[in-house]
């Protein structure tokens, strides 16, 4: 458990987290590894985990029948993966595929939600870190959609 706390503490998402809060997260955490081309999760499956990427790269993609899947973002070292664990009905909205060997810390969503509910200080701290990431990605997606390069 101590090892996991240490890894979490080094991750940018948890920078400045108190030891007590880190312990709460680590209590729901486990190490996981995905080989290249292995799916971390698939659209529609229960979002029962939240991932802290240690290294590697994960492609987020949306599958369309009869077409190659469309990759709309990649995530890597220092980033977090998955927001569906916070939002009912807790199901993944897209596929996540490792494009290289990827090591993550998987955090059990029900466990984490339970602790956020039981200790609102902890829950607020989690959300304060979580929301900016989600907002940044929303802004980035807007920029991506604007298609700013080239002739307009």
């Amino acid at each position: 458990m101590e090892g996991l706390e240490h890894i979490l503490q080094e991750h940018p998402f948890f920078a400045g987290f108190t030891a007590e809060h880190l312990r709460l997260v680590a209590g729901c955490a486990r190490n996981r590894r995905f080989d290249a081309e292995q799916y971390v999760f698939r659209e529609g499956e229960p979002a029962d985990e939240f991932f802290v990427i240690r290294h590697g790269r994960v492609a987020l993609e949306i599958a369309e029948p009869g077409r190659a899947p469309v990759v709309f973002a990649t995530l890597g070292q220092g980033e977090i993966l998955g927001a569906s664990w916070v939002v009912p009905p807790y199901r993944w909205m897209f596929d996540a595929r490792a494009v290289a060997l990827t090591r993550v810390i998987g955090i059990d969503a029900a466990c984490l939600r339970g602790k956020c509910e039981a200790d609102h200080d902890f829950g607020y701290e989690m959300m304060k870190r979580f929301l900016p990431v989600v907002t940044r990605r929303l802004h980035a997606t807007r920029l991506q959609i604007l298609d700013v390069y080239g002739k307009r």
Partner: protein
Amino acid sequence: MPANAFTPSVYRVARRRRELAGVVTLELAPLSGAPPAFAPGQFNMLYAFGVGEVAVSMSGAASDTDTFVHTVREVGAVSRALGQLRPGATLGVRGPFGTAWPVAAAAGTDVLIVAGGLGLAPLRPAIRAILAERARYGRVTILFGCRNPGEMLYRSELAQWRRRFDVDVEVTVDHAEPGWRGHVGVVPALIAQAEFDPRETTALVCGPEIMMRFVLSALRERGVADEHIYLSMERNMKCAIGLCGHCQFGPAFICKDGPVMRYDAIAGIFTVREV
């Protein structure tokens, strides 16, 4: 200001290379003598005879003293006429004009180069100058974003830079194609993970203005001070010597106070609409 500020010199297209659909690189040689020296970041006014004149940055190495190299995207009448010029054709050249990237002042610091799309063209002379004297700089990182893998400017040169062990090169695309194994997403998103010391970093940024706004906020989030961030700005040019007012940007003129501007000098007006 060059002596011939208003009179174009005649150059001929020595070489022409298609980079992408609608984007060509022209190597221009003067009909006589050698081109004047320029600094990375500066631009010339290129005159397609009978059509008009537009500002285009140098995209070749400043150490190449035989020709001017320009990479042109065909967007309208003038740039299209320039893009159609074949080897041997002639055109008018005025310049060099404008301010330069702080290549010498950045020595001793980490250098972070952030380019979007054709924004890599004005940065290429700076990259070549920095790599030619690599030992003078700390970590050197090049972050490049483009629409899709097929629109990667200077693809083979990017690959060469990537093969060096003393430069970090990351390329990201907005839209991937099956088989693309690199980053997908916008270039500002790469800044959070890039390895540099924010207190000792010089950032050189060029790309569409909206992309630069996002880059600025990502740089600030990492703690890079405004006075260490340099942007290359674009406005329509006419005289290129600070007389006509066409390129006015708040109290500044892009043609002489820019195109390369230190962000702290323009922060107040950068996000103001219609400046």
